[in-house]
């Protein structure tokens, strides 16, 4: 009896304290809707522009690749390799502080691609795209027996990830990366001649379009939407002009394969990593040409008779934005939220994984970039939006980087989520300044 009374008293005191604390929080927070977001005091080590803050949503998730966030704030994460047999994670924050409280897993395959529409969750292995019906809460169902939407896509290990995006009009666009650096007879081998024409392009090195209302599609049911793209990991549909945009990883090893033409510094900067706007039937020129962001020209690849100066690819498209070499643009997201200041509206965020092909020069590009857009066209230069994911001034090899940005997603409130497949961390960037 006594104990019970004591407990009651204790409970009341506790309740009162909670109320006092809660009131205090509310006043301090000055945001009438919802509880306080757990913005890290040091922004979790990430450098963001004035007025932005960073929440460390989760860590130690394995190797998170692409991510997707539901209208209720649930987070889907595709893992490169399964952890305890699970290749997809569903993370939820139950108390509104932005930090994940519960986690469940499903999907017995590793991969990169994940995406949502109103009715389904889509996720890819390196050969297949699966889909899972969503319930009213945005939770995936049939997790043990998903539909097979697209299958038997070529996987020869190199550039095998099947990243994809949706256009909201019944189509899905899938990257099928070229299983080669520069279409040499022997991949990455000095002196090995290039194949001409490049036979890889028949089933890879481009974007294939499939329907979302047909199951078990493969090459015969799909359409090669664009070709001459070495490896695309970032794709997004730009709703302001209804066009597909993709980020390509440019070719490697100019110095190693052609030391007489390119020194190590040139080989570190060239060729450009590229952002393309894609029309149906476009050819971006790989392997015959590459884009040189310094000369601002399409240059004939040395394997095909180039010398670093001769231009080529008259019929190939130009990028809408070109970045320094090898920084690995792994995710693309057109920002449609209302949280960030006006300049970010409809602009492109690009998650750069950071380079490895710059050795012996310093590695670069462990960051999230931003390109401002107006009506579907870049309206200014690219800039670094979020930086210092690597956690050190100088990075000599990618394993030394603390975090490597890999995926991007927009939250229902307009937050920007960034995944990292090196530290296994999930970040959420919010704007808390005044517009």
């Amino acid at each position, binding site marked *: 009896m006594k104990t019970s009374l004591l407990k009651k008293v204790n409970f009341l005191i506790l309740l009162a304290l909670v109320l006092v604390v809660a009131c205090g929080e509310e006043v301090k927070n000055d945001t009438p809707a919802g509880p306080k977001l757990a913005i890290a005091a040091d922004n979790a080590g990430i450098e963001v522009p004035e007025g932005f803050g960073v929440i460390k949503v989760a860590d130690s998730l394995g190797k998170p690749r692409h991510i997707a966030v539901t209208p209720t704030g649930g987070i889907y994460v595709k893992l490169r390799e399964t952890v305890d047999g699970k290749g997809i994670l569903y993370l939820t924050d139950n108390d509104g502080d932005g930090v994940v409280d519960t986690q469940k897993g499903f999907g017995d395959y590793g991969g990169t691609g994940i995406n949502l529409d109103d009715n389904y969750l889509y996720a890819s292995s390196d050969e297949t795209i699966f889909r899972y019906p969503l319930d009213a809460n945005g939770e995936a169902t049939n997790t043990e027996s998903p539909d097979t939407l697209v299958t038997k896509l070529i996987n020869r290990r*190199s550039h095998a990830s099947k990243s994809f995006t949706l256009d909201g009009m019944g189509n899905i666009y899938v990257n099928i990366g070229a299983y080669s650096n520069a279409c040499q007879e022997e991949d990455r081998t000095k002196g090995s001649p290039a194949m001409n024409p490049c036979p890889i392009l028949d089933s890879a090195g481009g974007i294939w379009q499939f329907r979302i209302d047909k199951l078990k599609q493969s090459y015969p049911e799909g359409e090669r939407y664009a070709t001459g793209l070495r490896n695309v990991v970032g794709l997004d549909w730009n709703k302001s002009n209804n066009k597909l945009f993709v980020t390509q990883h440019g070719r490697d090893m100019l110095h190693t394969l052609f030391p007489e033409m390119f020194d190590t510094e040139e080989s570190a900067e060239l060729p450009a990593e590229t952002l393309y706007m894609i029309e149906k039937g476009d050819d971006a020129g790989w392997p015959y040409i590459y884009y040189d962001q310094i000369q601002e020209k399409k240059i004939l690849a040395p394997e095909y008779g180039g010398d670093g100066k001769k231009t080529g690819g008259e019929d190939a498209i130009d990028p809408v934005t070109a970045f320094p070499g090898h920084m690995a643009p792994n995710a693309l997201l057109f920002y449609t939220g209302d949280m960030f200041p006006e300049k970010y509206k409809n602009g492109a965020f690009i998650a750069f994984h950071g380079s490895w092909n710059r*050795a012996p020069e310093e590695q670069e590009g462990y960051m999230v970039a931003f390109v401002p857009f107006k009506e579907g066209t870049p309206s200014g230069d690219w800039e670094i939006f979020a930086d210092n994911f690597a956690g050190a001034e100088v990075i000599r090899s990618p394993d030394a980087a603390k975090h490597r940005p890999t995926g991007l997603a927009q939250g229902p409130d307009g937050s920007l989520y960034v995944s990292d497949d090196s530290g296994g961390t999930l970040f959420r960037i919010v704007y808390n300044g005044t517009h």
Partner: protein
Amino acid sequence: MHQESTVARSFFLLTGIVLIFQSCNLSNEKNRSNTTNEAKDEQVKADSKKVTADTAYIEGQALYAEHCMICHQTDGSGVSGLNPPLIATEYVVGDKDRLLGIVLNGSNVGLEVNGSTYSNAMPSFRALSDMEIAHISSYIRNSFGNTATPVTEEEVMTYRDKNEK
């Protein structure tokens, strides 16, 4: 950079001398030039064993920078998911024939190293001379914290005789 133990260094040193003498006596199709060999010969006569070993190590280091570093990195750590590390793996410090098989023939099998798989193709380096292959192999076996017996030019020659037609 030079993290190899004294034991390994001594091995390297001895092998270095053997290698130098071999390079003078055997006609190696890919030797860089006679001048280089003569210069090395002079060095052997003139200087201590230490200098010779350092020369072999430095040769290996230079060849590593030219052919290997772009993928396996300055510290041998490789690239997660793409290019395997050269640190603390039996592929490097273990059986020499297996290592030579990979260096000479390349590898495109999605190699699993220490529980992770690596997807990039490694090119063949069969165009390099026996001496160069020996230098590179010995260098990686005795760098990045690795310590293992060096690979001799003769071992490379024997491997090629057995496995290449």
